[in-house]
């Protein structure tokens, strides 16, 4: 059995995608437990920061999703705090520049927006963490899409990352119920104020599986600190 510290639960088109950290010699590496017969989980009974033991075996996953592992017999064995999770993420795959995120250059969408993609044959992995300087959210295409713009420490920006982090999407839904059309202003003022001073401000960027044109789009898989229920009360 392999113990994974669950670091990402993201909402993808076909279900949930889960990533966990495997400890090895004081460092961590990301692995993506895949349920049998599917790339995505219909339901995932654990939460982020849970320690879950899996029976993992190598998967026929194609590069750059080299973290894929077929999984079975999952069982919770404990959990850590959010701060401890971010500590571990900082010891896993990290990069300080966009090029280093996936070991290759990114390309701007040719069709319209500011989303970026990688050529799957260039990328060496499909998940990576980074320290961020700043963030802003766009709800222009909500509820179909929430986009985030991140500024990295390198001074580079990722201007239109789809937010696929389940907790952030759920939180956005709750905020929308409360503030309606003011959701973007609310995120830009209140939520940003919670995020930016935090010592655990950290993001994990993932790349989606190749689309019909064979392009792998970058996404915001995780954003720390995670949203808190009590923020909703403070919003009132």
């Amino acid at each position: 059995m392999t113990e994974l510290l669950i670091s990402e639960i993201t909402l993808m088109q076909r279900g949930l995608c889960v990533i966990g950290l495997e400890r090895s010699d004081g460092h961590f590496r990301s692995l993506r437990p895949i349920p049998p017969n599917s790339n995505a989980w219909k339901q995932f009974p654990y939460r982020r920061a849970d320690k879950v033991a899996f029976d993992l075996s190598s998967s026929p996953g194609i590069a750059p999703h080299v973290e894929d592992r077929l999984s079975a017999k999952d069982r919770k064995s404990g959990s850590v705090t959010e701060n401890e999770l971010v500590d571990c993420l900082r010891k896993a795959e990290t990069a300080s520049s966009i090029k280093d995120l996936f070991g290759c250059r990114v390309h701007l969408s040719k069709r319209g927006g500011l989303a970026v993609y990688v050529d799957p044959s260039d990328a060496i992995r499909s998940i990576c963490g980074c320290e961020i300087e700043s963030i802003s959210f766009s709800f222009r295409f909500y509820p179909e899409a929430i986009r985030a713009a991140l500024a990295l420490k390198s001074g580079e920006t990722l201007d239109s990352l789809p937010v696929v982090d389940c907790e952030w999407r759920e939180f956005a839904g709750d905020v929308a119920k409360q503030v309606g059309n003011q959701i973007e202003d609310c995120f830009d003022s209140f939520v940003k104020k919670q995020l930016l001073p935090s010592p655990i401000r950290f993001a994990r960027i993932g790349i989606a599986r190749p689309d019909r044109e064979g392009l792998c789009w970058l996404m915001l898989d995780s954003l720390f600190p995670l949203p808190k229920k009590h923020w909703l009360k403070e919003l009132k």
Partner: protein
Amino acid sequence: MDPQNEEILRIRKLVEECLRAALPAGTVMPGDDDDWIETELLDSMKLVDVLVSIETALSFPNLFDQTVAPPPTTIRATVEAIRKTYREPIERGIESAQTPQSFEKRGRYLVEIAGWGVALGSERITADQVEHEFGLPPGTLTKRAGIEVIRRVSTSENEVSLAQAAAETALQMAGFSAQRLDWIIGTSETLLGFPSLAASMHTKLLAPGTCRVLDVGGACVGLVNCLTVAKAFFGDDRVKCILVVSADVHSRMLVPGRVPGEFGGLFGDGASAFVLRRAEGAEDDKRYAILASIGGCAGTFSSALQVRLSSDGSIGLNFDGDALAHAAVDRIERVISDLETISGIGREKAGGFAIHQPNPRIVEIILHRTQMPPDKVPQVARSCGNLGSSTCGVALSMALDECTKKSRDERRPIFVASVGPGMLWGGTLLV
């Protein structure tokens, strides 16, 4: 057909064009009420792309923000959302008679280029001489970058003298005295002192005291930025004539010992100038006018080129030539296609392309990718080097020289596209 139905058909056609561009070739167009997401025709990534490309086509950023409803996901809902928000008639292309009269009827104004001019450093330095100066292996600039000659200033020339020469040529062509200027808008990536380029030009040209001056940044996008700013200034009815000028003298800044030759060796010295005026009569139909301008900034590629002046006077340079080349090629291609979308004018109808030219090899890649005919792309970098903000200006002057040889009826549009550190981009379409 009544005007309302005609309008709906025009909007629908535009929506379908943008949708088709995002779908794999041969995909059957969905019905009016088929939901693009539910039918899995589009995922959320592509939905955003389609809606943004519609906003681009209408030159109306954030159009779908105004609808105060979830984003449309069917053809019918998209057409309705546009109709509710977009109050102006959907008119695109040269077919819609972009004359001063037609613009005036819609309460708009047309800005035309009445004159243009160029000045290059008077010294011609062969690329192998430059390789020698910088201690570069033979072939670095000639074979790898494709540069033949670099134009450099003599000891008696500088940014202001080059700009003055270009401006005087432009004013003479326009038949205007400097006394008629309402604004001088300048850009330079090398003149960092004061008085600035625009102020220096005011003095050199003895422009009237009421002529205002402005310096605009953007490095290689500087000239395109100036044209955009100038066009906006014509929104003030009192403004009749603006001089736009660019000048760059790299040879005194990017010298051996201060920057690597692979970077410094690419650059030359030059200037360009354009006299812009508000089109006012039938006579003005003969001149090229600014139809559309676009621009933006993508910090994603900002680390590919960073130039800083340190406190000790040295130059801090971060230059990833490979990354910059790829990003520049992608972006110039997108500027051209966005201009096509906005105007409804395809690149195959163009008479010329004035594009930024980091080096001739990159131009070759751009030509290959965008399928621009080489004879319609004036080559500046090969025979002058990269002239910074003036590259686009010199290329545009050359394109205007060539295109204005033809009669007005045979004249074709000119696409202008540039990229600069940041990564900034800008584009202009002249018709």
